[in-house]
């Protein structure tokens, strides 16, 4: 693979549909009836996957993602000998959309995984020191694998929600040291320490005809003039990723303050969904 980033073929959307979506936005509404700053319906299934150490399925309208956490033991990085590691991977398997061919993660998947990673990492949500087993020698590695099952826009916010929901529900296999070797006892589990008050979430805005919209559908993404994702944790901005288009300074200032406002509501929704301790199984 060569890291050559190429202007992407836009999905073919009939000109009429395109204009209709934009016109509705100009009239202060959206094609699916939502307000500009309203998220789609959110459904979260916590720990549906028995083979994972933690997992979640998130449905954001018709966008469906599943995240699973697996644990392994590694050597801490030299500059943080008393911390464990987080590795976030996102794949868009070809079942998610007619546009996707099978293959290793492309630049879009890599970007989303890296933004989700940064958002979680800088929020203080995970206590990385609690993942240390033997300083400088052994630490937990948390592998968060996110799979997109149906892509109807705003995968990044759904992916971040799924990752933090899965981590919230993660139980680590106990680590023991035998003959100077660390091993995991997968039958004995200890809870992963997370600080739910710092629950990190991303909020994605698009700009359409000078209006700002959150949680865009795929159609809305395709007619948007610009797109940006803000990672928020407890009122702090923990990541920003502008993708397409351009924004002026005032747009950004407005987006930042809107994202902090929306965050509180969104966090409450997510926390209420993930704290319901009912039996769960894989359903889509």
């Amino acid at each position: 693979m060569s890291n050559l980033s190429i202007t992407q073929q836009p999905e073919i959307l009939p000109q009429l549909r395109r204009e209709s979506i934009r016109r509705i936005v100009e009239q202060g509404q959206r094609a699916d009836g939502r307000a500009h700053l309203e998220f789609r319906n959110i459904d979260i299934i916590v720990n549906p996957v028995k083979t994972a150490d933690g997992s979640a399925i998130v449905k954001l309208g018709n966008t469906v993602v599943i995240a699973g956490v697996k644990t392994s033991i590694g050597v801490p990085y030299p500059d943080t000998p008393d911390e464990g590691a987080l590795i976030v991977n996102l794949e868009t398997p070809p079942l998610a959309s007619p546009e996707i061919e099978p293959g290793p993660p492309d630049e879009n998947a890599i970007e989303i995984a890296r933004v989700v990673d940064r958002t979680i990492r800088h929020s203080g949500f995970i206590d990385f020191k609690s993942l240390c087993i033997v300083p400088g020698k052994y630490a937990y590695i948390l592998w968060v694998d996110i799979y997109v099952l149906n892509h109807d826009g705003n995968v990044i916010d759904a992916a971040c929600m799924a990752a933090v929901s899965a981590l919230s529900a993660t139980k680590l296999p106990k680590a023991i040291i035998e003959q100077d070797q660390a091993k995991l006892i997968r039958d004995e589990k200890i809870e992963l320490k997370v600080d739910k008050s710092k629950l990190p979430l991303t909020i994605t805005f698009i700009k359409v005809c000078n209006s700002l919209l959150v949680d865009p559908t795929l159609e809305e993404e395709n007619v948007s003039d610009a797109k940006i994702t803000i990672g928020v944790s407890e009122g702090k901005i923990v990541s920003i990723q502008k993708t397409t288009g351009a924004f002026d300074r005032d747009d950004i200032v407005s987006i930042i303050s809107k994202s902090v406002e929306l965050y509180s509501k969104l966090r409450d929704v997510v926390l209420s969904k993930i704290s319901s301790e009912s039996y769960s199984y894989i359903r889509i």
Partner: protein
Amino acid sequence: MIAQQSEDLRRIVRELAREGKRFDGRAPDQHRPVRLEVGVLSNADGSALVAYGDTVVVAAVYGPREVHPRHLALPDRAILRVRYHMAPFSTPDERKRPEPTRREIEISKVIREALEPVVLLEQFPRTSIDVFIEVLQADGSTRVASITAASLALADAGVPMRDLVVGVSVGKIENLIIVDLNRVEDGYGDGDMPIAFMCRRGLITLLQADGQWSPDEVRQAIDMAYRAAGDIYRQMRDVLKGKYIESVRALSQ
């Protein structure tokens, strides 16, 4: 893992088998509860979720559609493209690396060859019909559950078929033939035989085996699998009839 523990488990599983019993209490010819859902993914032309006990797979079908790159197209019929893939969190113990393994490549091939005899490919020359399967949770028998899911997703997509293909595994532990292996039985047994049937016609479109089998045991295994497949087939028809009588016209030919 702890070698001693798994050794204990192996002993128990095998002792039970000598008494004609199974670790999870099932009768030898009893398959696990089956859960079948169709139309679960809105983007796909057809989709299905299939659970055999704790094994859960989801399948999506796209097509018939244009082939890329074009030189792969066939002038007289559609090509089938099949991908079987296990999510990294779908296996117990270690995370599975997401890159396709040799095992996944082989299974993608045999699933394709299990479906090709039923899909009316000749009706859609120069196109591709794509079947994408993701194993979300693996507790044995993933490839046969995948075939069942692929079948349902194809029917859900309205792709004309000669029959529904149903997958079932059979295994052998200490001379006991059992149906629908879970992971423990697969790991500690003496043989594994995944089978797929075109149920109405009684044809076999997938057959693999490892372990050691006498010719007579092979016969018993096939017959036991066929009975379980018939049971699952009836549930599939119910699920499809409910909503999809129209699109599965091929079934009633």
